[in-house]
C-alpha cells in the first residue's frame, strides 16, 4: 500500500481529465444561458438522450456496488469484503453526485430541481425517483462521512456514525432497491412506444437485477484499477467472491431476459436482423452470455486479468441495456416521423466530463482519506 504522498497527483492522465472537466463545465454554463436546444440534439420526438441514458440511468446502475458491499459487510457480516467497503461506498457517492448533477443539467428548469421535495405527486414514478435520489445521496454522504471525520480528527463524530451504521446501511439497501427498480418503472408508461425487446411488466425487476450485476462488476473493476494505479493491494479472494456474485446474478438475469423474450416478441424475433434485434443480441451477448460462460470457469474467476476483462464486458453490456431502453428501443417508432437523434459533440464532452469528475474525485479521496485499510482490519 502506497502511503498518502506516494500517489502522484499530477500525472498526464489526471491533467487530461481535468482539462475535459473544465471543457465540460464551460458547456454546462453555456447550456444554462442558451437552453437545451443550443447544446443538445434533443427534439420533440427524442425528449431524452445521452445524458439520461448514460449519465443518469448508467451512472445510477454503476453506483449499485455501494449498497451491495455495504449490505454484505454490515447487514450480512461478510467480513471478507470489509477492505473494499469504503471504496465501494465512496464510488457510489460519486456516482450519485454525478447522476444528480446530470439530471439537474438535463431538466429544462434546473433552478426548480427542488420542487418534488415540496410538491408531492405520489402517482408519478418520476417523483419517486427524485425523492430516492435525494434520500440515497444523503445516506451515502452519511455512510462515507467517517472518512472525512477521521481526516479532520473528529473521532467522536466518526464514532457516532459507526454506532448507527447498521440502520443507515439498511436504509440505504432499501432506497437502492427501490431506486434501481423505479428507474425501470419510469418506462412502464411507454407501452407501445418502447420496443417489446425491452418493454414488459417486469422492467423494474430487470433494472434491479442488471444493476446488481453491474454493481458487483464495477466494484471489482475499481478495485483492480486501484491496484494498478493507486497502489492498493487487491485481494484475489475478494475479487473471486465478487466474480461468483456476478456469475449468479448473470444467470438469473439470463433466465429472466429469455423468459420475457419468449413471452414478448418471441425468441425467433431476436434473429430477425432489425436494428432493435441486433442491439438486443449485442447487449445479451456482451453483457450476459459471454460473462456467464467465462465466469463459469474456475480459472477465469481466480485470475485478476481475466476478471478485469469480464468486468469490462458486464459494464459495457449493462450500459448498452440502458442506452437500448432510453434511445435505441424507441428509435424506430420516432424515426418513422422523420426525426432522428445522435448526440452533439457537446453532449459527449459533458458526459466524459462527469466520468472524469468521478475518477478524479476518487483518486483525490484515496490520496487524502483512508479509503483502503493500511494492513490490519479497520474500525
Amino acid at each position: 500500500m502506497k502511503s498518502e504522498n506516494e500517489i502522484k497527483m499530477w500525472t498526464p492522465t489526471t491533467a487530461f481529465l481535468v482539462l475535459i472537466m473544465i471543457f465540460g463545465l464551460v458547456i454546462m454554463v453555456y447550456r444554462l444561458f442558451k437552453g437545451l436546444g443550443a447544446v443538445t440534439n434533443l427534439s420533440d420526438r427524442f425528449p431524452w438522450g445521452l445524458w439520461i441514458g448514460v449519465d443518469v440511468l448508467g451512472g445510477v446502475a454503476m453506483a449499485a456496488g455501494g449498497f451491495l458491499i455495504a449490505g454484505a459487510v454490515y447487514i450480512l457480516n461478510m467480513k471478507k469484503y470489509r477492505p473494499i467497503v469504503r471504496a465501494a461506498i465512496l464510488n457510489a457517492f460519486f456516482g450519485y453526485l454525478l447522476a444528480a448533477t446530470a439530471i439537474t443539467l438535463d431538466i429544462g428548469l434546473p433552478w426548480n430541481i427542488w420542487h418534488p421535495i415540496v410538491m408531492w405527486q405520489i402517482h408519478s414514478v418520476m417523483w419517486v425517483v427524485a425523492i430516492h435520489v435525494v434520500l440515497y445521496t444523503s445516506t451515502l454522504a452519511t455512510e462515507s462521512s467517517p472518512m472525512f471525520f477521521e481526516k479532520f480528527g473528529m473521532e467522536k463524530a466518526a464514532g457516532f456514525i459507526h454506532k448507527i451504521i447498521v440502520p443507515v446501511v439498511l436504509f440505504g439497501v432499501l432506497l437502492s432497491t427501490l431506486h434501481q427498480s423505479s428507474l425501470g418503472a419510469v418506462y412502464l408508461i411507454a407501452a407501445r412506444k418502447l420496443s417489446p425487446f425491452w418493454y414488459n411488466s417486469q422492467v423494474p425487476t430487470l433494472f434491479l437485477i442488471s444493476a446488481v450485476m453491474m454493481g458487483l462488476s464495477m466494484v471489482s473493476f475499481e478495485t483492480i484499477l486501484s491496484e494498478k494505479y493507486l497502489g492498493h493491494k487487491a485481494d484475489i479472494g475478494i475479487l473471486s467472491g465478487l466474480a461468483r456474485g456476478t456469475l449468479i446474478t448473470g444467470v438469473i438475469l439470463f433466465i429472466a431476459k429469455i423468459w420475457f423474450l419468449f413471452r414478448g416478441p418471441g425468441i425467433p424475433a431476436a434473429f430477425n436482423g432489425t436494428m432493435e434485434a441486433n442491439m438486443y443480441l449485442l447487449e445479451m451477448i456482451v453483457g450476459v452470455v459471454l460473462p456467464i460462460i467465462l465466469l463459469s470457469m474456475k480459472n477465469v474467476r481466480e485470475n485478476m486479468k481475466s476478471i478485469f476483462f469480464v468486468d469490462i464486458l458486464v459494464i459495457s453490456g449493462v450500459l448498452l441495456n440502458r442506452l437500448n431502453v432510453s434511445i435505441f428501443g424507441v428509435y424506430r417508432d420516432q424515426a418513422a416521423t422523420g426525426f432522428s437523434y445522435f448526440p452533439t459533440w457537446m453532449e459527449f464532452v459533458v458526459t466524459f466530463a462527469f466520468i472524469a469528475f468521478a475518477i478524479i474525485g476518487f483518486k483525490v479521496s484515496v490520496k487524502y482519506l483512508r479509503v483502503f485499510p493500511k494492513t490490519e482490519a479497520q474500525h
Partner: protein
Amino acid sequence: MADTKPKGVLVDLTRCIGCRGCQIACKEWNERSVKKTVMYGNFTNPPELNSECYTNIRYIEQDNGGVPVWSFVKNQCLHCKNPACASVCPVEALKKTEAGPVTYNFERCIGCRYCMLACPFYIPKYEWEKAVPWVRKCTFCSERVANGLVPACIKVCPTQTMYYSDFDGVRAEAERRISENPGKYVSHIYGKEEAGGTSWIYISGVPFETLGFNMAIPAQPYPDLTWAYIKKIPAVIGVVIAAGAVSWAITRRNKNMDKEE
C-alpha cells in the same frame, strides 16, 4: 350560461373541409407565433405539432376506385379522462381539471419532459430553443371554457365539425349520428375506449387506421401502468427491512458464537 359538467368535444371528420381556420384561431387566442416550414409534398402544415402550434389539420388523399378522396383530420390534445402526462408529472404541473381540460402550470414545472415520453399521442411539445422553456400543448382553451365560452377553434369552424357539450353529451351525440346515418360512418368512436377514454372523441367516414390514428393504443387507462409498480412500494419497504433485520440478527449471532469459540 356556464354549467359545471365536465366538457367534451366530438370531432365529426365527415364535416371538415380543411380550411385551417381553427389553426389560425388557436394561434391568435393562445398568442403563438409561427415556425418556418418547407414544401415537402404534403399539405399538412406544419407537418407536426410544435411548441408554437397546438392544433393542425392533417391532409390525407386516398384513392377510391380511381377517384381521389380527401380527408382532413383535426389534430390536438385529446384531454384524456385519465391522462398519462398528468399521472407521470412529478410536481403536478400537468393536471386534469374538473371542467375537462388538461392544464399546464409553468410555475410548478421542472422541465423533466416525462410527459412527452408518457403521452401515447405525442402531444406535449417543448421549447427547446429557449433558456426558460415551457411544455406546450392544446389548453382546451381552459380560461374560455371556465367563463362559459367555447374553445377558439370551435368558435371559428365554418362547418361545425366540432360538437361541444358535456362529456356524456358528446358520447351520446356520437352514437346517435352513427346509428341515424347508416353507411355514413365507420362503426368506431375514436377516444371512447383508447387510453381509457378521452374528452375529445372522433367519428369518421373512412377507417381511422388509414387516417394516421394509432389503433394500437390499449383501452386501459395509462396511469395504471405505473401505479402497478408504485402500489407495491410499501410492501417492498416492509420485506426489505424485515429481511435485512433478520439476516443482520442471524449473522451477528453467528459472529458472536465464532468469538466465543
